[in-house]
């Protein structure tokens, strides 16, 4: 059974992971050719 410490770890990990994914999203959708002019 999951306890509050496990949930805390999962929530922390998920939160930071989502932040990293949001940055990855920005990286993926950034347009390098636009910047190159």
């Amino acid at each position, binding site marked *: 059974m999951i306890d509050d410490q496990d949930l805390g770890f999962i929530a922390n990990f998920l939160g930071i992971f989502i932040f990293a994914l949001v940055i990855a999203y920005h990286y993926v959708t950034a347009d390098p050719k636009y910047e190159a*002019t």
Partner: protein
Amino acid sequence: MAALESPLPGTPTAMRNAFGNVLSVLILVLIGVLAFSIRLFSVIKYESVIHEFDPYFNYRVTQFLSKNGIYEFWNWFDDRTWYPLGRVIGGTVYPGLTLTAGTIWWGLNSLNIPLSVETVCVFTAPVFSAFASWATYLLTKEVKGSGAGLAAAALLAMVPSYISRSVAGSYDNEAVAIFALIFTFYLYIKTLNTGSLFYATLNALAYFYMVCSWGGYTFIINLIPMHVLLCIVTGRYSPRLYIAYAPLVVLGTLLAALVPVVGFNAVLTSEHFASFLVFIIIHVVALVYYIKGILSPKMFKVAVTLVVSIGMVVCFIVVAILVALVASSPTGGWSGRSLSLLDPTYASKYIPIIASVSEHQPPTWPSYFMDINVLAFLVPAGIIACFSPLSDASSFVVLYIVMSVYFSGVMVRLMLVLAPAACIMSGIALSQAFDVFTGSIKYQLGASSNSTDDAEDNTSTNNAPKDDVSAGKTDKGEEIVKERSSKKGKKKEREPADKPSVKAKIKKKALVLPLEASIVALLLLIMLGAFYVIHCVWAAAEAYSAPSIVLTSQSRDGLHVFDDFRESYAWLSHNTDVDDKVASWWDYGYQTTAMANRTVIVDNNTWNNTHIATVGTAMSSPEKAAWEIFNSLDVKYVLVVFGGLIGYPSDDINKFLWMVRIGGGVFPHIKEADYLRDGQYRIDSEATPTMLNSLMYKLSYYRFVETDGKGYDRVRRTEIGKKHFKLTHFEEVFTSHHWMVRLYKLKPPRNRIRGKAKKLKSKTSSGLSSKSAKKNPWV
């Protein structure tokens, strides 16, 4: 507008968009999972239980709804509250939450998923938090593109301010209302961006859901007109604005009037007047634009002069009539809560019942940091980002944040309205920063390998907005901005694509940062995000998950659980007659009816100030006078909450001054000064005789000295003033394990025959007047 056209399949742009879309769906799913799971600490640390006070009432209503159906629910007259007045529940409750949970419960049972009503109620708030995060994504996407939307949604999923009202078990109106609020704003902006009547209709329906859910709907019906007015004043009027606003007012008001608790208030109270005024203004403006189109400039000038002079006179008359109407109503046409929004000191001066609620107090600075954390620092950056470039959508979110910051400063409860605005602004700020840094990294990494490709693609990208890094993405906000751009801007757009201005070149080059600097900046931003996440998880786990009905404390011996409330309500339910009336301060009314199923005199609805003042007066009076008041209300038991033994600060002694104030507001013989020694509230030997003889003091501290021999109060940190006394008109029937809840029964009046005999005896012996003997038949 090459950048806005959909890219050809197979091209790098199409691949990028496709990969981006997949990633955004994944992120949104994870955000939903996080929003749900971060709110489960209360269930894991405690149990699956309804929290606090108001949620118990909502739970009871949902139980009734699921048992008796919707028609019975609308007609439900509850005789278990506000005895002897009762309460028409169907006509006085915002039904959105209960109907939502009831529908979910019905749907699940139809699918043969046999969840109890309580389980559905406990998990409604976390589920709607996920919805609210997704609605935030949609709203922010309309304003500043998908990237900002994802960042804002991630921030909202775990913002402590919202968590405090939506943990599992917190079954209150705000749980669904915040989703409805954000979704209504999204549909308004969507209509504003597209001019679609379809979205305008959906917007009115979303507004209807919001009206069903929470009294805070007046925020929407004032904020949107303010934005419309702002657009008109700044010369941003367009048919899209008309479509976004006019159907909302007409349909929305009609729908709002269908909700029994609102009814004709939707057109009669002054909270709604701003929307009607702006409704008239937008029609006048639309007419002016139409006439301008059909008249020559000279004729138009003449017409304007004529109309303005006549219009001024008419306006003056109408405003004078309105002011007279508003001023003639008792509260100046505004309800007490609304007035306290405009004048923060209003409630504390005039309406103690509003001021007595802790969530109606102004917040402190630390509570901002606790509730929105790093967002407080990111918001200014987001506001600046909204101004470059300013669109209708971005001006709306700027207005939203400004208004919500003001209102949150008035009432700590409205931090909840600020939280989504702060998340949107911070999401925009973070997204802009991510855009610059990730774009720079991508450019720097790709510059060496793709240098040959750059030249040939110049032609397709030069038309994109010059000052926006995210312009490569096809977001609607940009489209609108471009359409509204000045003639000068349009001329610029028509310039040959292969001749970009020197200024634009300089700007673009300035946006590309060195690789190392970008990586370091991104790492710092991740650290900032991580700090926010850790704070939010800590707040969810430690600060906001306590259900208030079960308390815990950690000591050297281990975890202590204080389950006194449920113990007492269970005692009431098992040991008293089903029709017995229980008097307590209004805080515990909802819980008593929901958990003990006993009739109460006042509850958390606080609709009748006189009734609450009567209970307040009884609690503040000496024993005999209190007995008379309670007896006249047919009360059998009195419940008091006492924290002096275990150090529980939210007890009745700490709330007692509010009882005195509210009681004194209606019954002038109760004076606050009589309960204070030199302006200080004391319960020790220095306390005033009025305080020491009040019913609340006696019921709280009766036999308290037997616990430790001294009568040391752990909340007030002092020895009590009056230690040894007996009760004459009340008898103790139950005290919970930790003395948190104490129940007393009203003694029956002494036999009248004995009183007569006594009277005769006294008449013959001491010659006391018959009047005084009659007045005191119990002694």
